[in-house]
């Protein structure tokens, strides 16, 4: 079990190093990427199953007991996120091989992808707040490079904003960690949870909570902190935006959920009302931003923002059902959003543009792609019985339970606007006749290989929808762990709080 827990961090590192060593052998790097991420997916699935059966798993690195050393602790949420990250990584690896961006592949593309996944997984598994910062930096550094890799003008322009604002977020994170250590004298999350529960003077903790909220809020792209995302996500190659769209913001959401269920709980700091308000504003501004766009990936980018609102909505409502809804949403969203970006990429590769104005007739020329687009698009809009429907349903049900009428109205209204956006893409790019002259179809490249991950992810979407029962059970179990942090604390510290 220990090995399994460390594997999601160490395996990508090994894959990264191996790929670096094979710098000039792109072919070998491709094989390593696909096989390695495939293996990672299997291992993380085993980890998840193990945790589902036997409870929270903890490894104290270097055998230094908590809270003094760094502990990796995987509860269900962490393990679920690792599985999702691995699946995304696998899909991206396949897609990258198909996309055949030779120049980028020669300049460390695969090592960067591996390191990014390492950072993401590290963030999901670590039980230490400063270590979380370090993993954030690993992830961000690789994402900076991946975003700018290739040096095309839009990439660089988007990269400047992405980098500047995320660096700013890191400084806020570091500030919060410094202050937190200053007052609490410890860095281990479980230890923090224990010590925080014993204190009366919560004033400084609220302030620190706000700082974490701001820092993670930037990374998760919530209102009014999301501006870096729509500025940059549409600029890199499709595989990279797919990877980012699926994973990066969700690390922010994860961190928020972790800290605001374990340490900054509602009885201690009253920030969950604020989170609810932010969730609503994020949903609305994101979806309206998407309504204003007419480019495939720009529309999708704004929808990421909007969807993040739903995920933190569950955190703000703070009931087991609501958190289960958030976790369900995370599972659904990572798969669906990655897929939509990959599909947008295929369209881009084939027609050289993502502008809806210059696209058209895809229904005729690419019928299978149309079908594959419909699955994640309708899921995103919450059409039953696809995954997104259940994700939204759970959140709305949780809101009904506590009579949060405004939230219900917002969540449902935004889902209608999401449907509008997805139909807009469908009508313009797929149903409409191709404009004259039609966009020059690029025939120099086959997109067949790139369809494999798209089919894979679409299948998962359908499976989550039709298997909503077991998936929900998993999400609910994860949510219950979060609502009762004593299990987590006990697993890490070996004592009950």
């Amino acid at each position: 079990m220990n090995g399994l827990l460390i594997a999601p961090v160490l395996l990508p590192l090994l894959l990264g190093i191996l790929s670096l060593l094979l710098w000039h052998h792109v072919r070998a790097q491709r094989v390593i990427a696909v096989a390695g991420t495939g293996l990672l997916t299997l291992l993380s699935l085993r980890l998840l199953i193990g945790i589902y059966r036997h409870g929270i798993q903890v490894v104290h690195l270097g055998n230094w007991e908590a809270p003094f050393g760094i502990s990796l602790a995987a509860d269900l949420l962490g393990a679920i996120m690792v599985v999702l990250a691995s699946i995304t990584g696998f899909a991206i690896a396949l897609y990258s091989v198909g996309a055949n961006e030779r120049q980028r592949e020669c300049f460390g593309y695969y090592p960067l992808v591996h390191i990014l996944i390492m950072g993401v997984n590290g963030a999901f598994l670590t039980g230490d707040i400063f270590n979380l910062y370090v993993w954030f930096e690993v992830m961000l550094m690789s994402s900076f490079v991946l975003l700018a890799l290739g040096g095309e003008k839009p990439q660089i322009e988007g990269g400047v904003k992405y980098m500047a604002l995320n660096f700013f977020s890191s400084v806020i994170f570091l500030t919060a960690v410094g202050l937190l250590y200053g007052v609490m004298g410890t860095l281990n999350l479980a230890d923090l949870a224990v010590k925080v529960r014993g204190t009366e003077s919560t004033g400084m903790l609220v302030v620190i909570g706000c700082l974490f909220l701001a820092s993670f809020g930037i990374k998760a792209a919530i209102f009014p902190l999301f501006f870096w995302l729509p500025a940059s996500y549409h600029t890199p190659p499709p595989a990279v935006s797919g990877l980012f769209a699926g994973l990066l913001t969700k690390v922010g959401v994860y961190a928020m959920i972790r800290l605001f269920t374990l340490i900054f709980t509602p009885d201690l700091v009253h920030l969950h009302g604020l989170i609810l308000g932010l969730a609503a504003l994020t949903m609305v501004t994101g979806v309206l931003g998407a309504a204003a766009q007419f480019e495939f990936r720009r529309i999708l980018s704004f929808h990421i923002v909007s969807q993040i609102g739903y995920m933190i909505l569950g955190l703000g409502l703070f009931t087991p059902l609501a958190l289960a809804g958030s976790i369900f949403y995370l599972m659904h969203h990572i798969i669906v959003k990655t897929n939509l970006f990959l599909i947008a990429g295929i369209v881009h590769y084939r027609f050289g543009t993502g502008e809806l104005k210059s696209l058209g007739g895809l229904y005729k020329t690419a019928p299978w792609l149309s079908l594959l687009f419909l699955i994640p698009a309708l899921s995103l809009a919450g059409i039953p019985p696809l995954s997104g429907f259940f994700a939204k349903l759970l959140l709305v049900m949780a809101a009904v339970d506590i009579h949060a009428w405004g939230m219900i109205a917002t969540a449902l209204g935004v889902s209608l606007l999401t449907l509008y956006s997805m139909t807009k893409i469908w009508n313009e790019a797929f149903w409409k006749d191709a404009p004259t002259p039609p966009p020059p179809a690029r025939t120099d490249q086959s997109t067949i290989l790139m369809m494999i991950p798209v089919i894979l992810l679409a299948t998962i979407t359908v499976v989550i929808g039709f298997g909503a029962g077991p998936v929900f059970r998993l999400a609910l179990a994860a949510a219950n762990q979060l609502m009762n942090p004593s299990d987590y604390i006990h697993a890490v510290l070996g004592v009950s709080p």
Partner: protein
Amino acid sequence: MIGILTLLLVGGFLTPLFYRRWGDRTASRLALLPALSFLLLVGMGGSMSGQGGIHLISLTWIPELNFTLSFALDGLSLLFALLITGIGAFVVWYSGAYFDGDPTGCRFVMVLMLFMASMLGVVFADHVIVLFIFWELTSFTSFLLIGHNHREEAARKAALQALLVTGAGGLFLLAGLLILARAGGSYELSSLITNTSLPAHPLFNEAIALILVGAFTKSAQVPFHFWLPNAMQAPSPASAYLHSSTMVKAGVYLLARLHPLGVESWLWSDVVAPIGALTLFTGAVMAYGQVYLKRLLAYTTVSALGGMTMLIGFGSPAAAKAAVVFLLAHALYKASLFLVAGIIDHETGEKHIDRLGGLRTLMPWTALGAGLAAVSMMGLPPTLGFLGKELLYAADRGLVYLSISVLAGMFFVYVAYRTGVRPFVGLHRVTQKPGHEAPPAMWAGPMTLGGLSILLAVFASVTGKWIVAPAAQAVLGEPTAIKLVLWHGWNRELMLSLLTLGLGVAAILLVRPVSRLFSPVSRAAVIGPDAWYRAGLKGIQQGSVGLTRILQSGYLRAYIDSIVLFILLTAGWHFLGKVPFPGFAELHAVDINDLILVSLLFVAIAGALLSRSRMAAIASLGVIGYGIALIFVLYGAPDLAMTQMVIETLTVILLVLAFYHLPKFALRSSRPARIRDFALATAVALFTGAMTYAASFGEIAPPISWFYSENSWLNAYGKNVVNVILVDFRAMDTLGEITVLTVAALGAMALLKLRIGGQKGGGS
């Protein structure tokens, strides 16, 4: 039930495979699936009447949420299911001929089959979530069918409109159902409608109101009616099936289903009935003056749906009975007339009524089918239409409702004449295509359904016993004695019927005066809900562009402002309110070294801020770095000082190297901007300074670092505690740190060397 659903779903999904094998003959074979389902349902209906009239199935689904896949079959759902499968069989058969030689036929039939399954799901579902899932699926399949001719913009727009209107209604419905389920403690419709304590729940009326919005959008009630006429962009079989006889009746179905519960709410009599009457009136008036066959029919569909809604709103047994008969009659004659309209369009290429005439000699069978349906729609005896109208008048609730009903009846006569009679009589007119009789696959539907309109009326007592009574009882939620009789004698209803007929004939003869009489209503419709919809869509579009232009302005500093303000308003606000100021008691004394150092830092910071030259700014930054290193030395952190020195030197060198390639400073920002930024920066300075100060004294728990000091040598064998922490206690951090460094180096290298689309071209 589940077997039938699965059969149709699988049939739908496999349609492309069948098409690959059988080509255009597929549809006529696929039609056997709904036909078979119809027969099975008839069998189930026959056996059901013996066992209390309800048949329940429940499968586990998500027990934690009390979600079960539960289905129920009673008189009401059976009636709908028979209509869905019966008409469905004809429509699928018809579609095969309609799309003969057209490759899109496969897609059409596939979606049609899937719709059929979804619609059956709606009427079978007992669990509200199951109901909602199928409900949404009917909306979505309807979207695909309306947009079938997707190369035409009008079709795309109409499809989007229908999807958005019914989709929005669906969301209201979902909210309403969830609230109702929560209030009633169950998700099962069968237990909700018998829950007698539910009407007393404080949220009961709210839940019902939300559900009503869902039902009204689906059944095209005013003011949501506008999507239905626009939906006529769909191919005729879809219009006949979805947009007249089945899907649009889902809203009516829902109202009927919730009837026992709904009548307890004031909304039922005060909202449902008036809205229904208004729709009955509006649809009928708007139909007058339409010149295209399908639009004309669509408006009377709106009107008829209003009639059914009104009857359900009345809430009386007589009204329930009338609603059921009216529904059955309408489904039969309207599907026929739409199918006929499709035949005419298909065979002659004409949609405009005034360009049609004398078709009876060319297409006698179609003419016969159309005539039968028209007679029923006019309400002549002995037809279901006649029965329905008699019952409608009998269920009377005052003069206003009655006169609206009579008025609508008048227009029905007119429309029936215009669509079912007019194209076939009189002089033959030359049409775009020469026109000839359609294949039997196409006229069989209108013929049979039209014939049934009469047959079911002639054998009224049988119809009453086997179809109407069970359905009406299900609507009312209690056993009621219901008999259906064709002839009531010379009573008031018959007089009203005759009056209606007379008015209808007048409307046919005196088109001009009548249309002038009602023209204000039609004109008012121009500024009606359709326009609101368009304005709303445009408003959202423009509003979102405006909003996004403000938020996503592209100015990095605006984004930073937003973040900083967020922090100041949340963290800063709480800091002011909740953190006590620690005072100055425990301060470390300041000695002269500190003072010199801090002064140096002040000067350096000022230099970095104010300097107009790049080199001076870099030098100031260097001084800041070295100054901080000296602080580290003074306060027991020699390792830190060393690292800081090295890193600072490297940073300065890098900066100098880089700036060599960059232009000189230019003063760009305006004075007000600088003042504003300065104010914000001051606030941040005060906030962070105060926070730092408060934190350095605000210790809540003692630090854990005693452990490192104690174990550094004894267990980790290192003398420098900081180093031991880095390489042993917290080695994972260091691993991450090295990774970041490596990636940065790799990235910098790649960024400098790889330029895709740039001047130098790619790498190795």
